């Protein structure tokens, strides 16, 4: 099978304009245009990212100063504040923090549903729409609508679908009585799945738009050649179109993983992320914005998220910037 690029690599052929000497005024322009955003990026994104890692080895309630002395064993928590705690936060999270493993499990379920269901569904939408049937523009617009809405809003809108006594779903399946009503969003065995339906409703439209852009960029002569060779639609897609869309597939992989790690808004608006809807993102937040601030502990949970997210981020960066150094 051919692996011709989806788009000609002509854009790569560039030379950098500034090989020539810069004047003093030009240097000032460089310093300003690059310096200010770089400072903001470092101070508000990368310094906190590094801070999360460092704080995760401390014990601190946010009050008082943060020192470099080690925490004392076997003294009340109040005596041990702002001290180095080693890997105790990680140890505690894994052993005695009851929400940790459920949250990890929920994040993994979230990721699995996105990978196995939301993303393939979005790709299917894109492929069927790209097939060029009547009304495809209208379908695209409708399926894309949830992408525009905020997740907070989506959570509220779906509460009416799931409402116990009046909701559309329970009414249709005849489970809206006082005794037999299904509590979709309250039952800890059901609510994660109910929320995942909402998340899929939005995510597959998002994937569809990204994938459609990729499909449009595939050189039509490739498909034509496949047709001439006697390939059917199924073979054409999997053996010709899918391989040349490797860059967009990686983007979608990154979006899928990152979005499932970021998941927060939907569960927060539904029940603040408790009772079956625990997620790592919620635990991080509740440990710093809650009444008892456990800065070190919350940071350790943040580092768990960071480590997982670095995998797709690295793959994406490697794929995107690999050819950059050797123009």
């Amino acid at each position: 099978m051919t692996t011709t690029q989806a788009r000609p690599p002509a854009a790569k052929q560039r030379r950098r304009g500034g090989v020539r000497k810069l004047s003093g005024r030009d240097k000032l322009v460089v310093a300003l245009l690059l310096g200010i955003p770089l400072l903001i990026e470092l101070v508000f994104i990368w310094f906190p990212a590094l801070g999360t890692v460092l704080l995760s080895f401390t014990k601190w309630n946010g009050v008082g100063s943060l020192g470099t002395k080690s925490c004392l064993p076997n003294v009340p928590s109040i005596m041990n504040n702002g001290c180095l705690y080693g890997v105790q936060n990680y140890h505690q999270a894994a052993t005695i923090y009851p929400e940790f493993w459920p949250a990890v499990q929920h994040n993994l379920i979230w990721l699995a549903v996105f990978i196995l269901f939301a993303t393939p569904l979005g790709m299917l939408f894109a492929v069927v729409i790209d097939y060029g049937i009547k009304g495809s523009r209208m379908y695209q617009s409708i399926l894309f609508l949830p992408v525009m809405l905020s997740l907070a809003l989506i959570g509220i809108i779906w509460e009416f679908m799931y409402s116990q006594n009046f909701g559309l779903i329970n009414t249709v399946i005849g489970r809206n009585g006082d005794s037999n009503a299904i509590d979709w969003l309250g039952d800890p065995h059901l609510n994660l799945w109910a929320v995942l339906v909402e998340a899929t409703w939005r995510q597959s439209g998002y994937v569809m738009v990204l994938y459609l852009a990729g499909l449009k960029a595939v050189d039509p002569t490739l498909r034509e050649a496949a047709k001439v060779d006697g390939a059917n639609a199924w073979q054409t897609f999997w053996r010709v179109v899918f391989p040349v869309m490797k860059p967009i597939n990686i983007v979608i992989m990154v979006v899928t993983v990152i979005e499932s790690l970021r998941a927060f808004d939907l569960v927060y608006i539904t029940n603040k992320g408790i009772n079956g809807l625990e997620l790592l993102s919620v635990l991080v937040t509740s440990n710093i914005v809650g009444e008892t601030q456990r800065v070190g502990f919350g940071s350790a949970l943040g580092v768990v998220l960071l480590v997982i997210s670095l995998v797709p981020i690295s793959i994406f960066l490697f794929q995107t910037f690999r050819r950059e150094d050797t123009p």
Partner: protein
Amino acid sequence: MTTDTLPRVTAQQSSGERPKSRPWGQVSAQLFLVSASVLWLLPILFALYIALRPYAETQKYGYVSLPHHLTLKNFSQAWTQSDMLHYFLNSVLITVPAVVVALALSTGVAFILTRVNVKLNVALLILFTAGNLLPQQVIITPLYRLFLKVPLPEFLSESGLLYNSAFGLILINVAFQQGFCVFVLSNYMKSIPEEMYEAALVDGAGLWTRFWKLTVPLCRPALAALATLLTTWIYNDFFWAITLMSSGDKRPVTSALANLQGQFVSDQNLIAAAALIAAVPTLVVYVLLQKQFIAGLSLGSSKG
């Protein structure tokens, strides 16, 4: 050459109306998309239907019932009772400056990184791009502490801190979104032919002129697409406002929805109306600027 006997229609691509020779494929595709579209519209239309009906009526007959009475009263009541105008103004106050500043800053960065050979171009580009890919919760703990430490003059923040101020929220939205914009704009700028810059150099144009008079105008389509995307994303932001703003009355409308839900807990129809009012700006973008929005997403997902 055996395939010459195949109907030529099947070889037409992407220009549309291809598979007339395969009516079953056509019919099943239509059926699939029609049912998906119904499922996709249903939750929104259902919320709208509830918002249009009086509370007393839905209490008596349930949500799934024929309407006896359709009214816009829920909308007007939600608007006045929850002071939605105030939250909308908060949203505007945060979204507009954040979009403008994020675009201004990232255009400059993208220009320098693509057109001036500063050392570490690629490393810097990676730094900006990766910053936008981190889950927000990875940085929130130190960021929250930082926002509580940084003092602001009185006229920028009543609290005297970055925390709980519109300025702080603008700042974090800019910081978080500029990485994406730098990535998109630098890809876009790479497609500008080098000859244009050489011509400008011959004319004696300095770096600033090449940026402001040449590059920025050429990037207008990308900037328009990004502006649409950023406006929607920042308007829809929930997490930063929930964590970095304590008082409800300063929050933008999207995160204020969480409070409204508590306020109207006994009248679900009002919640539906308030939620739909909050959706109006994004629906306007959806109707008028959908192409720009999709163009922005596509620019971000394709390279070169």
